């Protein structure tokens, strides 16, 4: 199937099998390996990307479904080698250890912030994080980074 999609601002055309998952299209065809693939069954959130402004799990969508859409991955966040404010907050608070889950969390938070919502309490921050599994941090440092990026 022919596919046209805007990826991090650049137009991309490809010819893919319908069964190709969006996450595999991103990693294997586009070579954008910042998007991580954990469980491949929608449980861990590591593969979260932004499609047409919405945070989605890219292991639960097919690449062909992104046809005509606008896709953003974690590679889009830093500009000119300078980390985005959210990434800087993560750095300040040591909100990652192994970093496997971090791209999915950053893209979830970026989409939510862009639609004008942001947690103002610890419980709101934890509810927002409920779709992303982190096995290193215990989440506290991530919550701290979220609340510091107001």
């Amino acid at each position, binding site marked *: 199937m022919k596919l046209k999609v805007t990826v991090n601002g650049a137009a991309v055309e490809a010819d893919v099998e319908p069964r190709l998952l969006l996450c595999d299209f991103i990693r294997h065809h586009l070579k954008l390996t910042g998007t991580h693939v954990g469980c*491949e069954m*929608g449980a861990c959130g590591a593969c979260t990307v932004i499609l047409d402004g919405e*945070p989605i*799990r890219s*292991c*639960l969508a*097919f690449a062909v479904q992104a046809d005509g859409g606008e896709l953003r991955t974690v590679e889009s966040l830093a500009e000119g080698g300078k980390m985005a404010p959210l990434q800087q907050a993560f750095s300040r608070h040591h909100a990652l250890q192994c970093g496997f889950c971090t791209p999915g969390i950053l893209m979830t938070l970026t989409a939510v912030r862009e639609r004008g919502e942001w947690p103002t309490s610890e419980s709101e921050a*934890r509810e927002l994080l409920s*779709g992303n599994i982190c096995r290193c941090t215990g989440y506290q440092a991530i919550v701290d980074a979220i609340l510091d990026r107001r």
Partner: protein
Amino acid sequence: MKPAPFAWHRPRTVDEALELLARHGEDAKLLAGGQSLVPLMNLRMVKPTALIDLNAVPELAGVRRGERGLTIGAMTRQAALLADDTVARHAPLIAKALRHVGHVQTRSRGTIGGSLAHADPAAELPLVMVALNAVITAKSVRGTRDIRAREFFRDVLTTALAADELILAIHVAAAPAGARTSFREYARRHGDFAIAAAAAQRQPDGGGIAAAVGGVAAAPHLCASMSGIDAGPVDRAHLDALARREVEAIEPLSDHQAAGEYRRRLGALALAEALEEVLQ
């Protein structure tokens, strides 16, 4: 952990989708938000040879108010429902339940029709539809019919839909002004499927209470003994006893998450809390 090959179809209209479904029969699957179907495909527990993607059928999405109360298109996203003022005002129980449906990323894609057609026994939206006595409109090339939600959920992942039918829309009576609603859930982690949950709506002016318990049995359980409980003062001990009697009638599921007897106890607790909240 990759799906088996399939032919992908992307109809633009309901009629086109129904033609495809009739032609491919049991070999086809309808793709709504994909938040339950695609994991099953990735695990190869489901291997459709034809995938009929409903995401480009605009007539299936949207919420409107009319003579049948609220009519919600089957492909309306959970995130869109959660952000919808009409739903918040006229179907507050749906809005409350949606906060427990998955996570922000799954609600971006997940649809109401997909949740109902998938019929996970612990899913929140089927539970709410049973409590609210919703009507589900299904269509096939043979015609259109209405199915009451209370007769729709037959067993685990099993509904009254025929293989050639799709859900067009869901109809819910608008909650009258002064109605009180409650949704209570116990899950391992916020957004996970419920171990047990309860939904209740109390009509104003002694109009009665409708309540249902989910997660405990193979399908949502409509509570039978709700008449008269909104007369007189709230007595939590009485509600606890009533809720325990109500769940005794349920044949519970047991799995790795919870034994049947534990599900029943949590179901009774969720129900008593929901009743207490709507009676206050």
